[in-house]
């Protein structure tokens, strides 16, 4: 009976996992459309004013946040709630630092290539859409951190799902960063 219940639970998690991947695949279409628009409108042109330093810093911050999110997931699965809480806190902090970096980037970009220019349009749409996903990711991470540190913590799936979504946001930036700053 216990084995049967466990098997059903695993099957359900498998379905949830598949659903999440399908959701991320559908989200990818939006980002692919934005990438296509960027190259259609501007080719491989990148303005000289694009701030390479800030871009490199925020890229490193986001990659680092993926490691802390991964650590949080591993710690939660292993039952180490203390490490989970700390790693999740670090992930949220790094995500906020990324958003601050994007804010600095935007301040410079408004002067260098305003939104009414062709490059400005693609730049603000792409970074804006990505930043929106970062914000929603941070909200979800905040919720699961609270759930995971509560008196009655849930099973591993909510944490796995939130962390996967965070990695997805990271993967999007892996393609946006070269498209907006490096390919010239």
């Amino acid at each position, binding site marked *: 009976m216990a084995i049967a219940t466990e098997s059903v639970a*695993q*099957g359900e998690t*498998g*379905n949830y*996992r*598949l659903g999440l*991947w399908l959701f991320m695949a559908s989200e990818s279409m939006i980002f692919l459309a934005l990438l296509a628009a960027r190259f259609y409108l501007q080719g*491989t042109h990148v303005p000289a004013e694009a701030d*390479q330093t800030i871009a*490199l810093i925020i*890229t*490193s911050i986001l*990659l*680092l946040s*993926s*490691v802390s*999110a*991964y*650590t949080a997931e*591993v*710690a939660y699965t*292993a*039952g*180490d709630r203390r490490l989970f809480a700390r790693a999740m806190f670090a992930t949220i902090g790094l995500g906020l630092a990324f958003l601050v970096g994007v804010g600095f980037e935007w301040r410079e970009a408004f002067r260098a290539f305003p939104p009414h220019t062709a490059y400005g349009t693609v730049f603000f749409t792409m970074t804006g859409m990505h930043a929106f996903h970062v914000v929603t990711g941070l909200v979800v991470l905040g919720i699961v951190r609270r759930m995971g540190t509560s008196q009655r913590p849930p099973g591993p799936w909510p944490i796995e799902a939130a962390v*996967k979504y965070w*990695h*997805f946001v*990271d*993967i999007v930036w*892996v*393609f946006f960063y*070269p498209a907006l*700053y*490096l*390919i*010239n």
Partner: protein
Amino acid sequence: MPSTPEWTAQRKNRMESDHTSIRRGLWVFACLAVATAVEFVVAVTQIPGAVLMILVIALTKAWLIAVYFMHIRRLRGAG
């Protein structure tokens, strides 16, 4: 709280596997950091074929994240 030798051994194994996973995560991060640095240098130096190289590096980074951080292989057990 059980304290049999068997339970202690199980706990030790779990902690070791936990540490191994975290160490692997740090290795993946190191690879991602190196790949990003290479990507940056390739873009700045504008060597021939830079666009293709940057694309290959970006795909490799995405693959590393999907396989090691997102455990895409677990999808095989879905359904």
